[in-house]
């Protein structure tokens, strides 16, 4: 949790994207010279179906302020059905997280195809803006602080 000199909050956003659509889409954003917020760290997966909900939990548990999950539009999956399976998983997972009081405004799900470079820039920018308004994920940061204390204390 480093803060820079003027103490302004810079959101840390982790993006879990699929290799075939959104990663290529993000590539297009770059080659199209579209500028977007640099706060996002993109992690490439073979498919949205591979994006385990535990990875999202781990992102928050390691200090992320926001998460983007993005893949191919329905019917466009490179593996035919990975995004359909992912969609079901997110429907359940999102409600469960909401039930335990996690702020679901911090997690953005989207379909971004390889042709939608502009949409990717828009998704990232709006997400970073939202997180900037929401502030750091303090609820998780409090738990992280306590867990470090506990783990070190027990050794």
């Amino acid at each position: 949790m480093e803060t820079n000199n003027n103490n302004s909050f810079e959101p840390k956003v982790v993006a879990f994207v699929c290799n075939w659509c959104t990663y290529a889409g993000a590539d297009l954003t770059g080659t199209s010279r579209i500028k977007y917020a640099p706060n996002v760290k993109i992690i490439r997966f073979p498919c949205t179906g591979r994006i385990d909900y535990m990875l999202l939990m781990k992102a928050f548990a390691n200090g992320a302020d926001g998460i983007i999950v993005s893949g191919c539009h329905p019917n466009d999956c490179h593996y035919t059905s990975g995004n359909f399976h992912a969609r079901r998983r997110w429907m359940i997972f999102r409600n469960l997280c909401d039930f335990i009081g996690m702020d679901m405004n911090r997690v953005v799900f989207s379909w971004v195809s390889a042709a939608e470079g502009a949409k990717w820039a828009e998704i990232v920018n709006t997400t970073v803006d939202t997180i900037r308004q929401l502030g750091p994920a303090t609820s998780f940061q409090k738990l992280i602080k306590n867990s470090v204390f506990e783990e070190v204390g027990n050794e």
Partner: protein
Amino acid sequence: MNNIQQKTKELLESGACTLIIGYEKGTGGKARPVFVRKAEHAAKLIFDESCDQNIAGYLYRQEIKNESKKAIVANNHTLKSIVELASENQIHEGDFMVLAFTAEGEIIELKSFEEIEKHVATLYHGLNDEDKATMQKIEAMTMEERWGFWENEFSKCIKCYACRASCPMCYCPTCTVEINQPQWIPVPSHTLGNLEWHVMRAMHLAGRCITCGQCAKSCPLDLPIHLLTYKVALDSEQYFDSVAGTSVCANNVLATFKTEDHENFIR
């Protein structure tokens, strides 16, 4: 109930069964599972309101699977779990006999999955009034209140995994918590790791939880962790029209999909 004692005595004496899995009187007004192999021990067996434990999990234990002629005294939760386990190919038709009870308290023998399924269809599926009220109470809270509520509950968890051990649907030989490369769930019990554990447990039970509440009943700290799996069970029903423990040929909710699944949050 002499009914069940008489019945099991006959089964054991005739050699129709060599093992009866049922309930006996425990301490503190509770019933506990018992394994009866001899006709003279059939007098131990009881079946009343105290027998609320879900004992379907015994059926897929290797040492019990090896027994050829067995019967299980099943309450409603156990029956639903048997159906769900059958749909996941964990137990097989003809391997065991079920002794269930009609609403009038009469014993019925169920041998095929079809018979079990039919009987289960007559049972009530859903939450009891108390759990319904608690769910509504939590859902009516603000986000911060909900987080506070669960943070408090999770902070008490000692990660004994009694919830996992008691759940008939938790049968993986190697659980994700035992995997340490990567270490998905931290070993020490702190609130953050406990939260990850309970979210993971609930997610793994999505569309499979038959809402028996055995996890919460066996929790030594009385944490309302059953509400998490109830939440995923209710969502599975609402979104995917899937109620666990109703059909032996049902497909798992998260392992299947429909192209017309409808959500409103993906941009």
